[in-house]
């Protein structure tokens, strides 16, 4: 992966931006976190949380001018959260704010603070926590003098906040006025927070709080005059202390200060999904919220998050994070030098379906990220073999003589069109493919060639660019030999692969073509079907429209979900189903749970996955060739998929091209219960693997026997995998009781 590109991707996910409330708070109090604690009824934790951000929780809880509240996104659906009232409840709940602890500085410096107002005291607190020596000069006899005159602030609250400063080591010099320039000679830095009464002619930099004197910083109410904001004034002390700390350490004063102070947030929030709610009214407005009222009010906080993609994608939900975090993990996974690459499976569990980019306010697509990560893994030889091995062997099968075929229509020596049904439709409904091909031949003048093979999608999804290239080369050689006819695809993944990766090959979906040439003769059967567009057609509106019209002609009433562009994957895309069955099942289960009616789709893999998870589903070809209860058809499973492909080819050669092809004889006849068969399917063990293993045992005699049950235990390692089969012989058939496999190779130790 390209580091620059990774940074760009990361920057596009805005989930980590603060919510509007805390962005607007000049000291960025984590209001969302506070509301979460309050909603749980944990006032004590909420108080402790507030104390981490605010040196004077009591004072702020009573007097804050709360810019957070005007920014609160809740106001777009009901009233803004009464953040100020919540803070007041926290402030009056009777908890003691923890005292400040003097930190340990590497190099202890001396800082003078002029003026013991809110900004000066905040600066003093922040600097003592950093471990410096702090001396506060106050002209009056008391700290926080002006606040003491405020009738809305009980004296006990002010004293409780000041208690945080006891025994911190800050030296307070009362009734002492001092000159900043003189102090600057004696101290390493000076903060001037003397309030509106002080010199108002100081030039203060609004970002760094520096003045013309390199050691003197200033801020607080002197800057605001009639626009005084208590929390902004307090925040001046905080940001000036930050500058002082940086100056003392010789660090840049201006770097990384973008998020300083009150500002708007870039966090996207889908407000529309939240029903409006009015603010909770306190029973006694003078007393403010009771703890229970505060809890109810806090529960109105959304809380603000983007997570648009996470909400629609069970894969993104599964790993408990969101793209920004995932992208970081994925990049670390690639660059890690020592230790396990923990994100390998996560990277291979994305279906590459593109839905996330569709819903993301920044159009960030995790599929692109995961595919690029897979390319990196393959390039560095770090791709776990087991994740894609099965799919790639299946691909090899489809490219082999057992399935691959490219011919002109019988009786023709050129092709006006070339039909490419794809390996999965052929695997799922070989009879439909054969009938449909004949329909095309009957309707299209000039001959319709046929090509059986694989478009290479599995290789592309596995980031095996080498294999993908070979598969495309296979195709091209045959396509050129047949005179480069326009290609008609039945599978939407094939359509995607051709249009995206071989743009010079004119490609059309069979469904748009079908509308022009007319449907096969057959009456329509009234039905009510929920349409599922395969994710690989996401933006192919012409295909969407054709399929709907065809279904309509066949008597179907179509129910829409979120619309074609928001369609999901069935779990097979990106080979997710093979790398992570659990996640793929979550994806398909969510889809089929969206409503009760039967699903209609036009990808064989989608249909079979729905069926596998217990959903009644039909392929559009089932509407063209109605035959019994097609929606009840079971998922054929991986073994039958390969056998069906072989049978399709042999049948076509026999029936259309009149060749003398015989079906291979089965030397090993297998039998097994439905449970064993389902178990094999889950373990990705093909009947052919079983047959080979049994054959090996029977011919070599290498097997164990269980004396109690009479079962044989056989093992065989054709290439990179050892298969184990427990079977018994019953009436000439081999009854399979169980099978399993492993990749590790074993030999007797020397």
């Amino acid at each position: 992966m390209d580091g620059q590109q990774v940074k760009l991707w990361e920057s596009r996910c805005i989930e980590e931006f603060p919510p509007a409330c805390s962005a607007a708070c000049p000291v960025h109090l984590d209001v969302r976190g506070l509301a979460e604690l309050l909603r749980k009824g944990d006032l004590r934790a909420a108080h402790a949380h507030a104390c981490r951000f605010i040196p004077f929780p009591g004072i702020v809880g009573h007097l804050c001018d709360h810019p957070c509240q005007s920014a609160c996104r809740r106001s777009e659906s009901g009233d803004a959260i009464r953040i100020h009232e919540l803070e007041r409840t926290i402030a009056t709940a009777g908890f003691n704010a923890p005292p400040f602890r003097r930190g340990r500085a590497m190099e202890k410096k001396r800082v003078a603070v002029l003026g013991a107002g809110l900004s000066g005291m905040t600066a003093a607190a922040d600097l003592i926590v950093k471990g410096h020596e702090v001396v506060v000069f106050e002209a009056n006899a008391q700290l926080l003098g002006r606040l003491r005159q405020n009738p809305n602030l009980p004296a006990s609250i002010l004293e409780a906040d000041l208690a945080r400063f006891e025994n911190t080591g800050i030296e307070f010099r009362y009734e002492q006025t001092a000159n900043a320039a003189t102090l600057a000679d004696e101290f390493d830095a000076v903060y001037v927070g003397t309030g509106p009464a002080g010199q108002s002619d100081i030039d203060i930099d609004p970002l760094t709080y520096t003045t013309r004197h390199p050691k003197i910083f200033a801020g607080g109410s002197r800057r605001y005059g009639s626009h005084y904001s208590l929390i902004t004034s307090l925040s001046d002390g905080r940001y000036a202390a930050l500058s002082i700390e940086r100056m003392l350490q010789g660090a840049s004063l201006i770097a990384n200060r973008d998020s300083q102070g009150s500002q708007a947030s870039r966090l996207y929030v889908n407000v529309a999904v939240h029903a409006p709610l009015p603010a909770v009214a306190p029973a006694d407005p003078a007393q403010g919220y009771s703890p229970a009222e505060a809890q109810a009010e806090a529960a109105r906080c959304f809380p603000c998050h983007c997570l648009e993609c996470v909400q629609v994608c069970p894969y993104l939900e599964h790993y408990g994070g969101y793209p920004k975090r995932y992208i970081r993990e994925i990049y670390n996974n690639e660059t890690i030098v020592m230790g396990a690459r923990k994100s390998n499976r996560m990277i291979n569990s994305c279906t590459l379906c593109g839905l996330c980019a569709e819903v993301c306010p920044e159009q960030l697509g995790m599929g692109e990220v995961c595919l690029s990560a897979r390319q990196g893994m393959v390039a560095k030889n770090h791709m776990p073999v087991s994740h894609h091995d099965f799919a790639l062997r299946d691909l090899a099968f489809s490219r082999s003589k057992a399935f691959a075929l490219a011919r002109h229509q019988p009786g023709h020596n050129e092709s006006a069109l070339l039909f490419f049904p794809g390996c999965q439709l052929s695997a799922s409904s070989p009879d439909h493919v054969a009938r449909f091909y004949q329909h095309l031949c009957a309707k299209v003048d000039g001959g319709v060639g046929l090509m059986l093979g694989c478009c290479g999608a599995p290789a592309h999804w596995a980031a095996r660019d080498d294999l993908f290239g070979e598969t495309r080369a296979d195709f091209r050689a045959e396509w050129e030999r047949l005179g480069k006819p326009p290609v008609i695809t039945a599978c939407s993944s094939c359509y995607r692969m051709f249009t995206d990766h071989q743009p010079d090959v004119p490609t059309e979906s069979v469904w748009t073509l079908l509308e022009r040439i007319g449907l096969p003769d057959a009456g329509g059967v009234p039905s009510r079907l929920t349409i599922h567009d395969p994710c690989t057609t996401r933006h192919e509106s012409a295909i969407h429209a054709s399929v709907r019209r065809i279904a309509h002609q066949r008597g179907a009433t179509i129910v829409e979900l979120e619309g074609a562009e928001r369609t999901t994957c069935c779990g097979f895309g990106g080979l997710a189903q093979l790398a992570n069955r659990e996640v793929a099942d979550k994806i398909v289960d969510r889809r089929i749970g969206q409503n009760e009616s039967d699903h209609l789709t036009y990808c064989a893999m989608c249909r079979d996955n729905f069926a596998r998870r217990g959903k009644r589903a039909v392929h559009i070809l089932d509407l063209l060739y109605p035959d019994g209860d097609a929606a009840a058809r079971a998922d054929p499973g991986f073994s039958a998929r390969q056998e069906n492909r072989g049978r399709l080819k042999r049948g076509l050669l026999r029936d259309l091209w009149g060749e003398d092809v015989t079906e291979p004889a089965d030397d090993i006849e297998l039998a097994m219960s439905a449970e064993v068969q389902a178990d094999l399917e889950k373990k990705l063990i093909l009947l052919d693997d079983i047959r080979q293993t049994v054959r090996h045992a029977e011919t070599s005699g290498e097997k164990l026997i269980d004396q109690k049950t009479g079962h044989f235990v056989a093992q065989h390692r054709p290439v990179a995998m050892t298969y184990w089969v427990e079977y018994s012989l019953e009436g000439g058939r081999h009854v399979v009781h169980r099978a399993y496999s492993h990749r590790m190779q074993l030999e007797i130790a020397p």
Partner: protein
Amino acid sequence: MSERPSTPAPPELTCDRCQLPLVLGKVKASYLGNSFEVELSCCPGCGFIYVPEELALGKMAQVEQALEDK
């Protein structure tokens, strides 16, 4: 896989070819260029090594994955 001893085979399993009961023996297990020794049930006659399903799908699968992620 380093845990020893590994699950011994059920006593009723015997080698069909040699007609011998299996015994625990040292076995070299290797994957992706890494190898280590384990104890598994083997036929003392022909050296047929038995891997029970629990081992294949449990510990062995874990080690395979760990090596793939290394």
